[in-house]
């Protein structure tokens, strides 16, 4: 369950461009853990739900923005994505992209 230092550093660099919240920080971990109830601890899901860990950042962000705008139909993600700012969604995409699969 530990995150290797190299990956933490990659995550830190990825997040540096995304906003003020540093990857690996308690703030970022805390924000991202609000997805874990359904998408698994550190984004690695149990069967029947989509894993987020290690997915390309751009794909994750586009999907969440499309849920938020209503472009992509959903049962629940259109309602949840509207609760997060665009900046938070970008931070989340960068965070999960940097997580090991």
């Amino acid at each position: 369950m530990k995150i290797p230092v190299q990956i933490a550093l990659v995550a830190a660099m990825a997040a540096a461009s995304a906003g003020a919240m540093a990857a690996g920080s308690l703030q970022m971990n805390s924000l991202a853990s609000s997805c874990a109830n359904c998408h698994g601890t550190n984004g690695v899901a149990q069967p029947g739900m989509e894993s987020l860990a290690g997915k390309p950042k751009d794909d994750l962000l586009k999907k969440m923005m499309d849920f938020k705008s209503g472009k992509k139909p959903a049962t629940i993600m259109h309602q949840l994505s509207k609760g997060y700012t665009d900046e938070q969604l970008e931070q989340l995409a960068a965070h999960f992209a940097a997580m090991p699969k």
Partner: protein
Amino acid sequence: MLRRQFIHSVGVGSALGATGLLSGCATPSGKGPKVVVVGGGYGGATAAKYIRMWSDYGIQVTLVEPSASFISCPISNLVLGGTKAMSDITTPYDNLSKRHGVTLVRDMVTSIDADKRMVKLAAGGELPYDRLILSPGVDFMWEALPGMDAAGAKDKVLHAWKAGAQTVALRKQLEAMPDGGVYALSIPLAPYRCPPGPYERACQIANYFSKAKPKSKVLILDANDDVTSKGPLFKKAWADRYAGIVEYRSKHTVSEVDASTNTLKFEFNDNVRANVLNVIPPMRAGEIAVKTGLATANKRWCEVDFLTFESKAAKNIHVLGDSIQIAPAMPKSGHMANQHGKTCAAAVVALLTGAELNSMPVYNNTCYSFVSDEDAVHVASVHRYDAEKKTMVTVAGSGGVSGAASELEGRYALAWAQNIWADTLA
């Protein structure tokens, strides 16, 4: 002082330490700060696991929980309906110790000395702490239900509102009930644990009756003015799927229970006699929180600082889950307790290591209810900290309920359960 000792004990430099993600040769050394978590439900177990993870295994965590396994309240209504078994909702605690190094103590905490930072265990012995996390769930206000103190009453009139032995016993009562019988479900005034839970239970038992004993009835006796959660969706399910089986009556506050004749008496309504009585009592914070003096809201619920979940009545003691005085529109749910656990875990790690506290927690609630054995509906909300109001508020424009019940959401509901059990316990 504490922080210096901690960083020394896990052997990392201040550069990494300052970020709060302490990497390196962390091994449980018997040094390092001590956190004691009381109660291994959705709130406590999650907090225990995440404090270990986010301190890079530098903070020592002891979880005090009397049960050998976690039994989930969510999905337990499907056991009552007969489509799931107890084994489907039961998860052992051992991964918390094996994978995360949480020390499991199978016991109850009987008292807390907040000055000495020490808890006493029922079996004897004491545990010292730097930070204490209480996640004791709810206890029942039996004094509000005259008659339930009669000999044998609590064994006959069940609540099954804490999944476990009572879930099994209520299922047996339903199986033994003759076709043409009446099952009556009494719901207390909100707030109570799991707002939509009673209405889902009515659906599950009606689904069972419709197949196994179709002349039987489910009678819902609700103290509230109306269905408290997902009202239109539940009412549609009762009308479309269980017409002639489910009857809903609002504003029915139980004033007395006569277990010998299976009769409920009400403040303003006629008595109701049923073959099976299922009375969900009014509830308050878990007993250990109440007797420690933390239940400062109406002597029922514990007020907390929503940035840290630290009690407003006692320093270094945090309270999570169903025991807290909720923020506006925040349900008492397992999903929410899990989110409390993680928010509190981040705060406790920050407080014990000197890292920066998260000043803007954001989290969500997702709650599925099955209206049949396959179809489910949901309610969802997103909550963020409001620094001016110093509480959690729902994010405008977010959240909502299902348009209609669906089999797809039924599959998501079961996947949700598998994921939150793993997030909490694995």
